[in-house]
């Protein structure tokens, strides 16, 4: 029953980040204590939504695990050097990988257990890292970023203003924020603004 994968596959050399022309490297804001956070855009990435059919959640999780080599379970999110995945709704994962073949690999791996939707072009992933990352994020999201409330590797769905966004904790003080591509520029602007008080570097 598996449907052929509907491809807008891969990201070719022609791919262009939505932040082109708005991604200025350097250090900014109040640098009295140096740049206390670092902002980066992670581009390009392969991004998929995996939506398990009721009853096939475990199989789907295992399939994602196989396809990405992540230490993922039905309820545990995971991050590795070249991939990450988190459950943002019951039976539903956002999977991100450096390997552009992710959509096909995943489609094959999950088979009839889940629907895979390629969102590689539809999302922008921004990373914030550094001692003050939680404070900056607190300005933007009504989410508790405290370590034990937001454990390492966990990912969640929320929104910024009225617009859907996702966040995954990828390091001690590092978070990936996944926003709609169309919203990336406005969000980037807000993120930079919120970081000015603590000083930031764009790498």
């Amino acid at each position, binding site marked *: 029953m598996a449907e*052929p994968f509907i491809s807008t596959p891969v990201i070719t050399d022609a791919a262009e980040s939505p932040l082109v022309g708005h991604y200025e490297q350097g250090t900014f804001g109040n640098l009295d204590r140096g740049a206390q956070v670092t902002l980066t855009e992670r581009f390009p990435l392969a991004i998929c939504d995996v939506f398990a059919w009721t009853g096939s959640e475990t199989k789907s999780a295992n399939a994602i695990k196989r396809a990405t080599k992540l230490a993922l379970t039905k309820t545990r999110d995971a991050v590795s050097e070249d991939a990450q995945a988190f459950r943002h709704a019951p039976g539903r994962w956002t999977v991100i990988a450096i390997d552009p073949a992710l959509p096909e690999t995943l489609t094959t791996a999950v088979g009839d257990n889940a629907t895979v939707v390629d969102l590689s072009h*539809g999302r922008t992933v921004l990373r914030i890292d550094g001692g003050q990352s939680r404070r900056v994020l607190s300005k933007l999201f009504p989410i508790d970023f405290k370590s034990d409330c937001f454990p390492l590797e966990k990912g969640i769905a929320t929104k910024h203003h009225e617009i859907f966004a996702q966040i995954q904790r990828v390091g001690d003080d590092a978070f990936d924020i996944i926003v709609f591509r169309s*919203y990336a520029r*406005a969000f980037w602007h*807000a993120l930079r603004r919120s970081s000015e*008080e*603590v000083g930031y570097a764009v790498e």
Partner: protein
Amino acid sequence: MTSHRRPEGGSAIDRDDTVGFTVDGRQYFGLAGDTLAAALLANGVRVMGRSFKYHRPRGVVAIGVDEPNALFTVTTDGVREPNVRATEIEVFDGLAVESQNRWPSLDNDLMAVNQLGGKALAAGFYYKTFMGPVIGPLKGTRFWMMCEHVIRRAAGLGRPGTARDESRYERINAFCDLLVVGGGLAGLHTALEASEAGKRVIVCELEPRWGGGADGKKESEIRQIVDSLESKPDVTLLNRTTVWGWYDGNTLAATERITDHLRTAPEGAPRHRHWVIRTGHVALATGALERPIVFPGNDRPGVMLADAGHRYAETFGVLPGQHLTVLTNNDSAYQAAAALRHVGANIRAIIDVRPEIGAGAQRLADRAGGALKLGHAVVGTSGAKGLKTISVARYNHQTKSFSGGSEQIETDCLLVSGGWSPVVHLASQAGAQPIWDEALQAFLPPDPDKHWSVHGAAAGDLDFGHDLSPAPAPVFEIRHPGKAFVDFQHDVTADDVRLAHQEGFRSVEHLKRYTTLGMATDQGKTSNIAGLAIMADALKMPIPEVGTTRFRPPYTAASLGAIAAERYGDLFPHRLTPMHDWHTDHGARMYAAGHWERPESYNRTGETVEQAYVCEAKIVRQGVGLVDVSTLGKIDIAGPDAAEFLNRVYTNGFAKLPVNKARYGLMLREDGFAMDDGTTWRLAKNRFLMTTTTANAGKVMSHLELCLDVHWPDLRVHVTSVTDQWAGAAIAGPKSREVLASCVTGTAVDNDALPFMGIVHGTISGVPVMICRLSFSGELAYEVYCGAHHGTHVWEALMTAGKPFAIAPYGLEALGTLRIEKGHVTAAEIDGRTTARDLHLDWMLSSKKPFVGSAMMDREGLTDKSRWTLVGVVSRSGEKLHGGAHVVAGDRDEPGASLGHLTAMAFSPEMNAYVGLALIEDGESRIGQHLYAADPVRSQTHIPIEIVSHHMVDPKGERMHG
């Protein structure tokens, strides 16, 4: 002017740091750490404001947020902030403030003539007059409006400005186990205890300094606790932060003032920060506010709350006057008197309404010196610009009677204490009624529950030191002839309260509204209790039966900027299509469509929008054009029941749609009216791509999700929004196929390979694309979809391939023109009030299956023949039509009733005429009629039109099928 600064003392000030500031342009000096009120007192300034109604000169009465009189306007970078309490402005070098509500100056205000109105301006007088004549030019509302014009200018306090406030405001979300409101001793101890138990704690204190009203002797204890709290990682200490609102789910709002007290702000620092704090538990340690006593002449500058006077000396080293007197009904003022004496003040007399006092008070009275007049009351004051003398008479507070003559005492400052009111505001915001405490003669917070607790003075735990009793005598007013003020700022007198009672405004809420008691900037912090005590007296009812007025957020006024932080100006959320920069680089005017920005038209230099769109539309009809359709909502619909699902949500059938074909679909709401339209593409047996209108993308997505989760959980269907995944460009015009043929590889695009509504996959310039042949313009047209990151690349490739065919980009205006000519509907017609039949889409209503809306769409109101239905309209005079014009049968002089309206208009290059679409009464039957398009509100045009079919161009659709 005499300096009132003592040579020593003052826990907040830095005697080595003199700062200069101006009031109304006049230079003053203060010390770093001073509030404006303290610095002005130190400079011997007494008049610090004018009252609202009578413009009476007023001095500062309080030391904190309860100050009703001393209000100033602070101007920073040309932006005005009116009504700032002098007790909250921290002076810095260069501070410039302006006094308010006076003309020409604070000391000489001509508006003070209002006082002469005296009793005529009593409560409620507005309602009884100004009705004006019933005939003549001032009849109706005119006379009132004339008077109102003058009244408005006399009212108001500070003057706002018109310059944009460029300050930055920020928002922050916080979470904790315990939020402590108030950084006095009670709050600090509560915080310490919780933090030692490992709790995550936030402490907010509205003052710059910690410690609240605590005695100077407690300074080291306070320092110790603060140090200890500061060292704990899970404790956040926020000073200059007022918690002002308590919302459902223990969500509290607070405003942190970050740079107001600084001459220059650090880089990146916001002026104010809006804190939204979600907490497990709230500990209210908000202290208590001292309240005044109402007596004749009680508003003269120099009359001040006793604790305020005490603290001006202790905190700022400033004496509130040279020759002090005290009026009290309780023991706490004795402490103030003794402490002031200790720092060198001369206490002339202590006047206590009580006939006797305890040993503790007596001891303090002895220390304070001056005459102790028990069983006495102040019955009047005098002094032109400030207090000079008070009149004192023997008083029995039980019988409220006076005896003997009155005695004059010279004094420039009368310190008053009428008892203490715990700050119950926050606890009561959610609606819980505070509880009257007979002993304290005060309202205490309602009973706490598991979400909150109350500590210290806020709980009624008023500890003034051993031997002193917290219980005052129940005296709120000393009733004697003369104007006695209850609400200082609003000039509400005790007689006004009684008049309200007399006229039947007896509920406290009526009292408030009729007299405006408690509606000023201090929200009655100093006046509410006295007001309701006077009303209770008039009603001969106990105070608790009269009750309080309702407490509402904010506790103290909060800047609009802070609450709105990051939601306006350049931080307003907006979304851009992948080709956005290309459009702006090529002269596109952008159009704000909800969150989106879309090209309206590409204006070559000097062109008007109309010239541009006509040119663009012509190019599409005659050659080929390209338009960005990336903003259309796109939804991936997958699963074995996907076709069945579409059958249920669309009015027409989708089950038999072949793979690689698309179909136009219409959705209704449950009530049978049209909701949205769009095409849905079958990409595989169980996989569809639905498109929606830009405006309805979110609404349709939620509708589908609701249907699946709530109504039909048995359907195996997954829906995912893929709006952002795809860039979309529609290439339209007779030459469009040739352009595609020249640049698409991997698939043929001829009529056989790609028939009308067919879908193919190929590549353009090395990038995979999906192409569907469908047409909104009515021309041969295709929608080319590719991954959004490739959007600009494919767009540019299409432009390049189209160059030999003179391709041009077109914007929303041209798109609109083309669809109007074709009679295709958009949101202007699917406006939530139209049915499928109104729009001639009844051919899409399947009779073979039920669908959302099918049960309701045939009700009489939806099928009535006189409903407005869609028609085309052509200008017969060549004049420009206007969207929103109404269709009428009569000429300009007698247009008659509206028959409906134009939903859209354009100049049609194809028909060489201004054309439009209209929804008009029984439209079908009017085709061929000559009517008028009337636009009296805008263009004043009255244009002869002919009603035609809404299919104005190529009614048979030969072009798009060709």
